[in-house]
C-alpha cells in the first residue's frame, strides 16, 4: 500500500476552497449525520429502557453548557489535539502511523520521569520545557525503527507501528515499575510533579495550558502541510513515492522526517497530559486516545481546523458521557456506541455529499 487510503474522503476540497468555505460546508454535512447518530443511539437507549432525552440532556449540559464541564472538555482536548497534529502530518504524508498510543505513553513516561526530578534543580519553566522536549524526542525515537524499516526496506508501517505500540505499552510499564518508581508509595507510579509546577492553567480556570499547545500544534501542522514547500514535499511522498523520487525528492529521508515529526507530536501529547494534568504516571495507564483520534482526523479530511471542531465535540461527549453514566445508570460505554454511530454516519454523509457534487 503506497499512497493514500483517502480516495473518497480527501479530494482536497478543503484545500482549494479555503478554510472558511470548507468549514461552512463541513457544518452542513456534519449536522445531519450528528442528528441521525443521536437518533440511532437514542434508539439503543430506548431499547435498554433509558430515556434518551434525559441522557442527551445531561451529556450536553455537562460537556458543553456548564462552565465546569466546558473547562473539563477543553482540558481533555489538549492531548487529543496534539495527537491530531501527529496524525495529520503522517496521514497527509501517506504514512499510517497507527503507533501513536505507544509513542504517547513513552512520551508520558519521559516527562513523568524528568519533571519531578528536574524540578529540584531547575526553575519550573525550564523544567516544563525540557520535559516536554524530552517527551517529543522519546516519542520520535520510539518510531525510529518503523521509520527506517519503511524508508529503506519498504516494510509496511501498519505492522511495525502496531507492534511498537504493543511493545511500548509493556515497556512503559516496565520503566515505571523498575526504573522510575516513586519509593514513597506502594502504588507503582513515578514521582509526582507538584500541582504548582505543572503547566499553568488558563486565566485562573482549571483549563490546562496544554490546550494552547495543542491548538498551536494543530494549526501549525495544518499550515505547514498545506502552505509550505516542506508540506508539499511530504504530501507528494504520501501521494506517490514514485512521483516524489522522479521529482528529485529524497523519499527515504522525508519518510523518516514524517515519522519523527508525527511521533514527536504523539510523544508531546503524552508529555502535555502528564505535565498539564496528571503530574505523574501510574503503571498500567493507557488511555488509548489515539484509536479515537484516528477516525476524527479522517472525518476532518486531515484539515487542522476541522480537526479542532471534531476533537472539541468528541471531548465534550467523553466528559458529558462520563457524567451522564453516573446520573442515568448507563455505563459510559454508551459513548463508544454513540461515537461509532457518528463516525459511520458522518462518513456516509461525506460519501453522499461527494456523490451528489460529482453528479451535479
Amino acid at each position: 500500500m503506497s499512497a493514500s487510503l483517502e480516495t473518497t474522503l480527501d479530494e482536497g476540497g478543503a484545500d482549494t476552497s479555503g478554510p472558511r468555505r470548507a468549514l461552512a460546508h463541513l457544518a452542513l454535512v456534519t449536522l445531519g449525520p450528528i442528528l441521525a447518530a443521536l437518533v440511532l443511539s437514542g434508539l439503543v437507549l430506548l431499547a435498554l429502557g433509558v430515556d434518551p432525552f434525559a441522557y442527551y440532556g445531561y451529556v450536553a449540559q455537562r460537556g458543553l453548557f456548564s462552565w465546569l464541564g466546558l473547562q473539563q472538555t477543553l482540558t481533555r482536548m489538549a492531548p487529543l489535539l496534539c495527537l491530531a497534529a501527529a496524525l495529520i502530518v503522517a496521514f497527509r504524508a501517506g504514512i499510517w502511523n497507527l503507533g501513536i498510543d505507544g509513542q504517547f505513553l513513552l512520551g508520558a513516561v519521559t516527562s513523568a520521569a524528568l519533571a519531578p526530578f528536574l524540578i529540584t534543580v531547575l526553575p519550573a519553566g525550564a523544567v516544563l520545557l525540557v520535559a516536554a522536549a524530552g517527551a517529543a524526542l522519546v516519542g520520535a525515537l520510539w518510531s525510529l525503527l518503523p521509520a527506517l524499516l519503511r524508508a529503506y526496506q519498504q516494510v509496511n508501517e501498519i505492522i511495525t507501528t502496531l507492534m511498537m505500540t504493543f511493545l511500548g505499552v509493556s515497556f512503559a510499564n516496565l520503566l515505571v515499575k523498575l526504573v522510575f518508581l516513586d519509593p514513597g508509595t506502594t502504588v507503582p507510579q513515578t514521582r509526582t510533579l507538584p500541582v504548582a509546577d505543572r503547566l499553568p492553567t488558563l486565566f485562573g480556570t482549571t483549563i490546562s495550558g496544554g490546550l494552547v499547545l495543542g491548538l498551536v500544534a494543530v494549526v501549525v501542522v495544518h499550515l505547514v502541510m498545506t502552505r509550505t514547500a516542506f508540506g508539499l514535499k511530504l504530501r507528494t511522498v504520501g501521494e506517490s513515492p514514485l512521483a516524489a523520487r522522479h521529482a528529485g525528492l529524497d523519499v527515504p529521508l522525508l519518510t523518516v522526517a514524517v515519522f519523527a515529526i508525527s511521533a514527536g507530536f504523539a510523544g508531546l501529547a503524552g508529555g502535555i497530559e502528564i505535565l498539564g494534568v496528571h503530574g505523574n504516571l501510574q503503571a498500567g495507564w493507557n488511555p488509548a486516545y489515539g484509536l479515537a483520534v484516528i477516525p476524527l482526523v479522517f472525518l476532518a479530511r486531515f484539515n487542522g481546523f476541522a480537526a479542532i471542531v471534531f476533537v472539541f465535540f468528541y471531548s465534550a461527549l467523553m466528559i458529558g458521557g462520563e457524567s451522564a453514566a453516573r446520573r442515568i445508570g448507563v455505563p459510559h460505554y454508551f459513548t463508544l456506541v454513540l461515537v461509532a454511530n457518528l463516525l459511520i454516519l458522518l462518513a456516509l454523509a461525506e460519501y453522499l455529499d461527494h456523490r451528489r457534487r460529482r453528479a451535479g
Partner: protein
Amino acid sequence: MVAAPSVPLGTMQAAATPARPVPATSPVVELLGVTKRFPGVLAVDHVDLALLPGEVHALLGENGAGKSTLVAMLSGLVEPDAGRIRVAGEERRIASPRAALQQGISTVFQHVMLVPTLTVLENLVLGMSWWRRPDRAELEQRLAGIRSAFGIALDLDQTTGELSLGEQQQIEIVRALLRRSRVLILDEATSMLTPQGADELGALMRRLVKSGLAVVFITHKLDEACRFGDRITVLRLGRKVGELAPEGLAAMDQAAAVEEVVGLMFGDRSIAEARAPRLRKAEGSPVLSVRGLTVTGATRLARADDVSFELRPGEILGIAGIDGNGQKQLAEALAGQRTAAAGSIVLDGRDITRAGVAERRRLGLRYLTDDRIGEGAVGGFPVATNAVLKEIGAPPFWSGGPFLLGGIERPGRIAAHARELIDRYDVRTPDEATPIGRLSGGNIQKVLLARELSGDARVVVFNKPTHGLDVQNIMASRNRIAAIADAGLAVLLISTDLEELLDVADRIAVMAAGRLTGIVANDEGARARIGALMIGRAA
C-alpha cells in the same frame, strides 16, 4: 471552461448521411445519442455509432475528444448519462465489464489492464469461476491455434510486470482473441509498437474482421487509420463531427483522406506545418558524455549495458528500438533515479555519476518520463501543483526560502504559471485546480512536457514524449523539441516511433538488449541503415 461550442457538423457527415447505402450486414453494436458528463466536462455528447461485422472502424479525435470514454461505455466501465446501446439489434444495458464480455465485446484498454504480479498464464485465465482449476494444456492448445492464425507467441510463465508494454499489449490482444468476441476494441494499441509491429497489427485486424469480427481501432496516427480502417469516425469535443464510410474512403487516396480527417479533427485550426530541416549547430565540446554506463534491470532486456555516447549543445540524439530494451533504464540512470553499476556520466565537465535527481536537475539535466501517470504526475494534485512539482520551494512560486520550511506557497503565482502553460500547450482541462488524474492521457502528457521545458535546462532526456498525443500536439511538441535544440540545448530523444526520430533527430542510435548497436547520422540513407541495425540485432 470546456463548454460545448457549436461546431458545425463535418462536411463528410453532412454529405455522407443521405447517400449512405444500406449496409450489407446489420450492426453488431449501435450507439444512439450516447452522452457522458464528468465534472466540468461533457466528455461524450449525443454520439451515434454503428459497428459492423467485417469492418475495422477507426475512431479518431484529438486528445480529450472522448474516445476512451466512448470505449469505457462500450466495455461497461461507465454507463452513459443518456442514450441507448443496441447489441445485435436489441437494446442492452452494459452495466459492467462482465456484461460487456457476455455481449461479446472485448477491449484492449489504453492503459494496460493486466496484473503485473501474475504470470502471463494467470492473466490469461483471470476471470474464470473461482473454484475451477486453470487448465494449462487446453490453454496451450488454443494458443497454438492463435499463433498459427495470427502469429502471436507468448511465454506463459513470465511475470507480466517484467515484460515490455508492447509485449503486455500482445497479451491483452491474445486474451481478447481467446474470448471469441464479436467486437474487439483497441484503444491506442499501436502506440507502443514499431512500424513493423503496427503493420503486423494491421494485418491481424484484417484477418480478424475477415473472420466476422467488428474491430474498433483508436489511434492518433492518421495514416494508420486510413490504411487499416474501413470506416473512420471523428470525434471532437465529445461530439461526432464526421464519418467516412468505406465507399468514400476507398475512393480517396491516403493523403486526401488524411487531409479530410485533419479538417474534421481540428476544424479551422490549422495543423503545424512540417518544419524546414534544422540548421545543425551542434558544435563545440560535448555537454554530456556517457562512458560505459551499465545499469541492471529486472530482465535481460531491461538493462543498460555498456552504453557510451556524447551530446553536443544544439544536438538531438535519437534512441530507436523496440520498447523494453533498456531505454527506460538508460533514461533513469541519466536522470539519477537509478544508480549506475558501472560507467560514468559527465555533464559540463563535471562527473555526476553519483549525483542525485535534484542535483542533476539543478545542473540543467531534465528528464521527461514515459510513465506519466505512475511517476510523472500525482493524480490527486491539481494541474497547477503538478506543473511545479519539480520546483518545490523555488521562487517565484514559494517565498521565504529555507527559513520558512522551504518557503511559503504562493498559490496565485502557481496558478498563473499553470494557466500560462495550459494556454501555451493547449491543455484541455476545466481549470488549473482540476486534479490532473482526471485529464485524458494526452493532456497529462502536455502538462509534463510543459513542466520539463520551462525554465533553464542544458540537456533534456525525452522518453517517448509524444506518446499518446494527437497529431496536432505531436507536431507542436516536435517543434518545441527542435526549438530547444536550436536554442543550444542538447537533447536525447528516446522513441519507439522511427518516423519521429527521422523527423527531428540529428543522429540516431539503435538500442537492443541494453546495448547501443550503432549510431548513424540522420541523412538520406538513415532509414535503411537503422532498419538494418534493428533487424540485425533485435530479431
